[in-house]
C-alpha cells in the first residue's frame, strides 16, 4: 500500500476517489474546499471517472445528490458549517427518502460571530436529521471511513445517508502520512452500488411522496430501524476492512485503557489524540484514567457505551458544542445511556474548542485533576466553558 503525505481534506478526496461515486456535486466552503478541489483534479485528469457537477449552492448540491441516488447511482457531496445549515432542508429529504448518500462535513463554527475555525456545532445541531454521523480522529481514519461509509450506508438493511465529520483545520488542514489502498483492492471492498430504492424503467415508481398521519409513523419507524441496524453493519464492515487492509476499528466507539480504570474522558474527533497522550501521562503518575472516543454519534452505540462506562467512578464529557440553555448535546446523550443502563457515576461536561479555540495539554490536565478530586468526593460543577469558568465548586 503506498503511503502519501496528506491533509485530512486530501485524505477524504483520496478515499472518495477510491470509492468511485458516479456523481460529485459540491460547493466551496472553508475548510472543506480542498477536498472538492482535489476531486475536480482527479476527474479532470481521468483518475476518477465521475461526473463533477458545479452547483450554485449547497442546497442544490445535496438536492442533486438526492436525484443521483434516486437514479440508482452513487453520490458524494461535501460541505461545512453555513453550507451544512443551508442544505439542512435536504438532509431530511435524503434520510427520509432512504438515499445512501455520503457527505463529508468539515466541522466549523456557525455564525454569528462569523468564524471559519473548527467546532462541532454545525453537525451536532443537525444530529436529529436522520444521518449516520461519524467523527474522524485523523486523516487515515477519514480515508478509511470514506470506503466504509458507502458499504454501511448502502447496506439494504440500513439505507441511510452518511456524514463523515472532520474537525476543521485541526484535521482538514494538518498533514500526516496516510496509507492509500490500491484502486482495485478498494473497489473490491466497496463494490458497486446495487440500488433497489430507485427508479426503474421496467417497473416505474413514485419515490419521495407525501404520507399523511395514518402512514407517516411507519416510514419514521422504518428509518429508526435502519439507523439502529447500522450498528451491526458498522461492525461487520469494520471486520471486513481489517481483513483486507489490516487496520482495525473496534466498532462505533474506541476505548483506551478502560479495562481497569476509575476515571474517564469521553470525546470525539481529532482531540482524542491529545487526550490519549494525556491518559498515558496520567497513568505514569498512577492515575487510573481512560479514554472513550465516540466514532459514531448516530447511531448512538448505547450498549457499547454502557459496557465501557460501567464500573468507573467519574466521567468528563469533553465536546465542541453547546445546546444553549441546556448543556453539550453529547453529554445529554451520554447521560441518557447512564440512566438507561442504571450506571451510577459522577459526571460533568466541558465545553471547549468553540470557534477553533485551542485545547491544550494543561486543559486536559486540569480536567484530570478535577476527575481525581471528584473521585475523592469533592464538590464540582456539572458544566464548564473551558477558559471561562472553573470546574471547582466555590
Amino acid at each position, binding site marked *: 500500500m503506498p503511503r502519501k503525505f496528506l491533509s485530512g481534506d486530501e485524505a477524504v478526496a483520496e478515499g472518495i476517489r477510491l470509492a468511485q461515486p458516479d456523481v460529485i456535486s459540491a460547493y466551496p466552503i472553508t475548510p472543506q474546499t480542498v477536498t472538492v478541489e482535489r476531486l475536480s483534479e482527479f476527474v479532470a485528469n481521468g483518475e476518477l471517472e465521475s461526473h463533477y457537477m458545479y452547483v450554485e449552492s449547497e442546497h442544490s448540491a445535496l438536492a442533486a445528490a438526492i436525484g443521483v441516488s434516486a437514479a440508482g447511482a452513487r453520490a458524494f457531496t461535501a460541505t461545512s458549517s453555513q453550507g451544512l445549515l443551508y442544505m439542512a432542508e435536504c438532509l431530511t429529504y435524503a434520510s427520509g427518502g432512504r438515499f445512501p448518500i455520503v457527505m463529508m462535513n468539515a466541522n466549523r463554527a456557525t455564525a454569528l460571530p462569523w468564524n471559519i475555525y473548527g467546532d462541532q456545532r454545525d453537525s451536532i445541531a443537525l444530529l436529529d436529521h436522520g444521518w449516520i454521523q461519524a467523527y474522524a480522529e485523523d486523516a487515515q481514519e477519514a480515508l478509511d471511513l470514506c470506503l466504509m461509509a458507502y458499504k454501511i450506508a448502502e447496506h439494504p438493511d440500513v439505507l441511510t445517508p452518511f456524514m463523515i465529520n472532520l474537525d476543521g483545520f485541526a484535521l482538514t488542514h494538518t498533514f500526516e502520512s496516510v496509507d492509500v489502498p490500491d484502486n482495485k483492492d478498494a473497489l473490491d471492498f466497496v463494490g458497486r452500488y446495487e440500488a433497489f430504492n430507485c427508479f426503474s424503467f421496467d417497473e416505474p415508481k413514485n419515490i419521495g411522496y*407525501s404520507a399523511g398521519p395514518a402512514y407517516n409513523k411507519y416510514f419514521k419507524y422504518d428509518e429508526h430501524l435502519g439507523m439502529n441496524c447500522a450498528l451491526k453493519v458498522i461492525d461487520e464492515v469494520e471486520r471486513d476492512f481489517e481483513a483486507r487492509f489490516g487496520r482495525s476499528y473496534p466498532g462505533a466507539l474506541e476505548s483506551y485503557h478502560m479495562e481497569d480504570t476509575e476515571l474517564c474522558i469521553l470525546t470525539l474527533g481529532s482531540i482524542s489524540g491529545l487526550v490519549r497522550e494525556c491518559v498515558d501521562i496520567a497513568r505514569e503518575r498512577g492515575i487510573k484514567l481512560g479514554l472513550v472516543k465516540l466514532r459514531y454519534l448516530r447511531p448512538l452505540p448505547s450498549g457499547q457505551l454502557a459496557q465501557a462506562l460501567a464500573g468507573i467512578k467519574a466521567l468528563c464529557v469533553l465536546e465542541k458544542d453547546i445546546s444553549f440553555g441546556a448543556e453539550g448535546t453529547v453529554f445529554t446523550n451520554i447521560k441518557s445511556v447512564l440512566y438507561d443502563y442504571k450506571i451510577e457515576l459522577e459526571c460533568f461536561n466541558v465545553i471547549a474548542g468553540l470557534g477553533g479555540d485551542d485545547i491544550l495539554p494543561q486543559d486536559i490536565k486540569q480536567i484530570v485533576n478535577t476527575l481525581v478530586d471528584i473521585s475523592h468526593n469533592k464538590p464540582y460543577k456539572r458544566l464548564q466553558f473551558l477558559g471561562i469558568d472553573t470546574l471547582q465548586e466555590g
Partner: protein
Amino acid sequence: MAAINHKTLREDEFFFGHKACAGCGASLVLRHVLKILGPNAVSVLPAGCMSAVGFNFPNLAFQNNSMISPFAATAPVMSGIRAGFDMRKKRGDKIPDDFCVVGFAGDGATADIGLAALSGAIDRDDNLLYICYDNEAYMNTGVQKSSLTPFGAKTTNTPVGTQIQGALSNKKNMFEIVAAHNISYAATASIGYLPDFLKKVAKAKDMPGTRYIHVIAPCPTGWGHADKDTINFAKAIVDCGLWYLAEYEAGDYKISRRPKEFGSIKDYLHSQSRFRALDDAAIAHIEAERDAKWAYIDTHWS
C-alpha cells in the same frame, strides 16, 4: 416524428386519480406533457399543488417514474437524476435512450424560491425539460402572491384594502430571464392554445441541453372563475395580449401568435374575482403596459 395533435396523442394516461380541483389547468399540463414524453419520462415535482394532489401515499397518481423535490430544488434534483442515469449508462447499465427528465414546477417554485437553482442548471446546460406551470400565485398554501402574480391581483396576502388594493408589482418576466442565459430552447405557451403547447413540448423533448417551457395554467380556485371556463381564460389571456406565445432558440426570439386585434382586457380581468376591484385607472395602467410590451415585441422579435 408525426405531428402532435389530439389525434396522434397517445391514449394511455400517466397522471390520473389525483386530487386536483375540478377545472385545474395545471393538471392538464401534466397530463398532456406526459402523453408526449411517454413511459420513460422521469418527472420531478417540487412542493406545490401538483405534488400535493399527485403523491398521497398510498394513492400515487403517476404511472411513470416520479418524485417530489424540495421546494427550491426542482432543477438540481432533475440534474442529479440525469447525471445518475447517464453515468450508469456509461458503466454499462441498461437505460432507455429516450428517457427524459421533466420538471413540473409552479410559478413560486420557479420564479421565487427555485430561481437560483434553475439558473444553475441552465448555466450547466444540463439535459432537462423544465416546465413552469404558471397559475400566478402560491396556490397550494392558499393563494398567496408570487413574483408571477400580476399587478392588481387579489390574493390572500395581497387583499383589497382601503389603502392598498391587490398586488403592487408587475409579473416577473421569466421567459426573458431564462432566455438571457442563452438557454438551448425556451418557449411560452398556454393550455388555451393546446396544439401550440404540444408542438413546443414535442420539439423540446428531443433537443439537447436545458429546455424551458412556461405555460399559463388557470386555477379556478385562485383566480375566481367557474371550473368550466379554465380553457376560456387560458385563451383570453393570450387574446387580450396580457400573455404572449413565443419561442427563444439560438439567440432569436420568435412570436408564435400575434393577435390581430386584442380582446378586451377589462372583460378578461373583471370576469375573475381576483381582479374585480380594479378600477378604470388600474385597467388603463395594465393596458399601457401591454401596449408597450407589444410595441417592443413587434419591433424586436420576428
